[in-house]
């Protein structure tokens, strides 16, 4: 494949317009089918029994009474999901998370499951399963878990990344370090130093659609899985490996997905549903309750972060240092590592050092959540940056502009940047009318920056041209927020036809080659690259067919604005052939016309954003109100600007929720106290103002149209932007997220007391 992904300037016809999405009508009429909206003949109801204990050895599970209950068709435990992971530690952890093997590691950990004829029977059956637990001491707080006295969650884990191999097991699974220069020397040159410790509580992605799937395993060894997922090809790999199946015999169809944000990137209930179906010999539908979603799926890390930044009087940062501790749940992860990489990514630093510690706790397995790990690090760093600017007496925007990374800067995580957008977003913020909006009593303005890497990855796309000239685009990246619209625009752009002539779908795993999941803001970036490549391959065939129709050499045919054009004087009277005309003749010129593409979309462009927000604080109650909010972010190239704005607004809203009210609250018993939307408080409509957006377009050199991922970065700055606004409104520096009213009121009272 000779696809050239390099950016070149061009005038766009379709890309950059705002048409209605192809899946829209089905979604406003209720016809779109999500995870729980699919049924099969003879389908059973699956239900999972979960540990009520934070940490316990499973001595014995007696399922005999449940099995005898009329209507129960299968009961499974870990014994029905034997370990087939063959030394793949990460897969083993996923398996153990799907069904606890020897120990229950958190409140909500699955220990058994049933399939029955109806919900009532399934629920009754769960009550009849007897689990003999031996309770173990537990730890849920990240700092507590690091102490030597903390209960050990896995005694086979020794800290990785230390120069000397440790002799004792630890809840700290890994240490990682990034940076360059000499921070000690750098702090020596500083006139001002800010040093502070921060904490952030655990949050959940909070997608409105609970995990849901329908699994059907046939006696011939083939199987179908209908599931809401961010990556059906990844789910197929996981499930096939965990159940000992050949991947090609498991066909996974991704339903419409009701939100994921990273929470639907690895399997939870799907292997369980397949195992139940295999045992029962009937299809099984398994839908999590909201309580299960909170207790057993999703959450991001809770963190504890120390930051130290020094600067000269003139505002130059001389050194920056951070130590970041991130909870991983009971299985190793690389969450602090990402936090350590992103923490200072916005700045040009001579001396920088970050150290991350991955920490096991008795909480659900940490999953990715939109720019995972970056918001917490940005909260700590951007809070300290604001404080430092204040100490120096500089405007916080000017201070950041002075220290912003630019093309050629060595990033804090190592590589040197290409063209990037942090400077332009800061300049745009400086000149934004929001910065001049008047503020009243108890109101404050804050701003903050954020960074995310963005990913590419394996991608496969088919583009088929029908005999009527309409185009079917089959992609393998799940559409989480409008990508079928943007990819249709890209196909239309490349082929030179109207958007309405293209219909994009997400193909199942048996219809298309492997695709990585929709994560890391890669959906539109990667699949647009593959779509461009597939379209170019189709154009090559279209030119060949036109050449046949004209009976001239293919080299004399070029593709212009949806038409084959014979070039050169000698073909002057041939005119043009439209895509439609060539398609109509395809039956006699060599058969169907299609373009295929398989590629690794590497070279994703990094992304930066700067946010501004105004907050009012009620000094008597600690209540906050978000008055104004503005997002400025680099998109590279906005393919469908309305959905780019939507990503900016959605990320900001999630960040606002995280900053102000969302948190996992554990009791002393290690049980989650708020597993529901009543007390896990995601923002409601009346909590938010309109969220203003400004899209900057600094082309990514590694994409033909300059596209960068846009999905994640917008959740990075809000925590800090709001903390800075609260600080300016109430005169207190909030170092603990969420800044719930009790925390803000306590801080105000402490400040009053001196």
């Amino acid at each position: 494949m000779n696809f050239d992904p390099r950016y070149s300037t061009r005038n766009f016809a379709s890309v950059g317009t705002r048409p209605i999405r192809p899946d829209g009508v089905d979604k406003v009429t209720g016809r779109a089918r999500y995870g729980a909206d699919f049924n099969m003949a003879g389908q059973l109801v699956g239900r999972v029994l979960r540990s009520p204990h934070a940490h316990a050895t499973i001595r014995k599970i007696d399922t005999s009474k449940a099995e005898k209950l009329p209507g129960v068709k299968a009961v499974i435990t870990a014994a029905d999901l034997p370990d087939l992971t063959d030394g793949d530690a990460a897969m083993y952890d996923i398996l153990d998370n799907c069904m606890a093997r020897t120990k229950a590691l958190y409140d909500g950990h699955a220990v058994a499951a049933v399939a029955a004829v109806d919900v009532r029977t399934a629920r009754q059956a769960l009550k009849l399963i007897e689990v003999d637990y031996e309770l173990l001491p537990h730890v849920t707080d990240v700092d507590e878990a690091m102490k030597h006295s903390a209960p050990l969650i896995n005694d086979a884990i020794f800290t990785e990344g230390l120069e000397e191999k440790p002799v004792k097991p630890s809840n700290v699974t890994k240490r990682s370090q990034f940076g360059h220069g000499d921070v000690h020397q750098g702090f020596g040159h500083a006139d001002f130093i800010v040093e502070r410790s921060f904490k952030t509580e655990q949050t959940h992605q909070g997608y409105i659609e609970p995990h849901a799937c329908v699994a059907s395993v046939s006696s011939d060894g083939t199987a179908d899985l209908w599931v809401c997922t961010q990556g059906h090809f990844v789910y197929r790999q996981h499930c096939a490996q965990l159940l000992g199946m050949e991947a090609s015999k498991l066909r996974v169809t991704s339903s419409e997905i009701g939100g994921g944000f990273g929470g639907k990137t690895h399997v939870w209930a799907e292997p369980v549903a397949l195992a139940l179906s295999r045992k029962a010999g009937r299809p099984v539908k398994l839908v999590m309750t909201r309580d299960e979603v909170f207790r057993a799926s999703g959450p991001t890390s809770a963190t504890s972060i120390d930051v130290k930044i020094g600067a000269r009087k003139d505002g130059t940062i001389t050194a920056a240092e951070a130590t970041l501790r991130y909870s991983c749940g009971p299985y190793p992860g690389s969450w602090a590592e990402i936090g350590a990489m992103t923490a200072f990514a916005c700045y040009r630093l001579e001396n920088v050092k970050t150290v991350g510690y991955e920490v096991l706790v008795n909480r659900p397995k940490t999953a990715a959540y939109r720019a995972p790990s970056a918001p917490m690090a940005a909260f700590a760093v951007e809070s300290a940056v604001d404080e430092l600017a204040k100490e120096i007496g500089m405007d916080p925007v000017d201070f950041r502009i002075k220290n912003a990374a630019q093309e050629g800067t060595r990033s804090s995580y190592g590589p040197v940047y290409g063209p990037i957008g942090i400077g332009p977003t800061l300049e745009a913020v400086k000149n934004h009318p929001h910065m001049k909006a008047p503020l009243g009593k108890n109101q404050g303005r804050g701003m903050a920056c954020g960074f995310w890497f963005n990913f590419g990855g394996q991608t496969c796309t088919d583009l088929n041209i029908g005999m009527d000239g309409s185009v079917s685009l089959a992609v393998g990246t799940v559409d989480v927020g409008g990508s079928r619209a943007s990819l249709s625009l890209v196909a239309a752009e490349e082929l030179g036809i109207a958007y309405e002539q293209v219909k994009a779908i997400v193909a199942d795993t048996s219809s298309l080659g492997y695709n990585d999941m929709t994560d890391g803001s890669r959906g539109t970036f990667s699949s647009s690259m593959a779509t461009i490549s597939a379209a170019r391959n189709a154009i090559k065939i279209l030119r060949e067919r036109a050449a046949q129709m004209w009976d001239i050499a293919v080299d004399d045919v070029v593709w212009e604005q949806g038409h084959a054009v014979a070039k050169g004087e000698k073909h002057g009277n041939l005119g043009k052939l439209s895509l439609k005309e060539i398609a109509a003749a395809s039956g006699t010129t060599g058969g169907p016309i299609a373009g295929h593409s398989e590629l690794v979309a590497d070279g994703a462009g990094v992304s930066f954003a700067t946010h501004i927000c105004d907050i009012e604080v009620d000094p008597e109650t600690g209540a906050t109100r978000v008055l104004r909010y503005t997002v400025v972010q680099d998109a590279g190239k906005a393919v469908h600007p309305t959905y780019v704005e939507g990503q900016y607004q959605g990320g900001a809203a999630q960040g606002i929720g995280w900053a102000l009210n969302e948190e996992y609250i554990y009791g002393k018993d290690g049980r989650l106290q708020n597993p529901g939307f009543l007390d896990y408080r995601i923002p409601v409509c009346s909590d938010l103002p309109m969220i203003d957006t400004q899209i900057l377009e600094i082309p990514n050199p590694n994409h033909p149209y300059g596209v960068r991922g846009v999905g994640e970065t917008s959740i990075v700055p809000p925590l800090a932007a709001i903390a800075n606004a609260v600080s300016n409104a109430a005169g207190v520096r909030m170092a603990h997220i969420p800044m719930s009213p009790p925390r803000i009121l306590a801080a105000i009272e402490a400040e009053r007391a001196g």
Partner: protein
Amino acid sequence: MAGVAVSTTINGDSVEYLCQPDETLLDVLRDRLGLTGVKEGCGTGDCGACSIILDDRLVCSCLVLGAEAEGRRVETVEGMAHGDSLHPLQQKFLEHAALQCGICTPGFLIAAKDLLAKNPDPTEEEIRFGLAGNLCRCTGYDKIVRAVQDAANVMKGA
């Protein structure tokens, strides 16, 4: 457990069904009648995804028993469009991209329909408080509020 026989009207059509006494109207609509446009996000009345209109009153169908629908009128998202012409709210949701994943959309459409029926000219604040029982995790609500404002203008002119 003996089933309860229910005669009701759903989206203008007479419907009869048998349900269990403890079965929610949400489960009846989705599992017995195939109206899966009504979504379950929580089952406890905290997310609004299962919103329906029951005798001109906006309710969460997860907090209504199937048996309670006897003799009443139920409206769901499936009944909003007339033939192939979408309700102005549906059209405006599409035009404004007021949905990303779309799972909350049916609930929002029904809640917005109820809101505009009772208050045809709402302020932004009235829209925001009127729709506060419906959670959306994707959009930050901005485009939803704009779509409702735009639909209200269209419906006033109609």
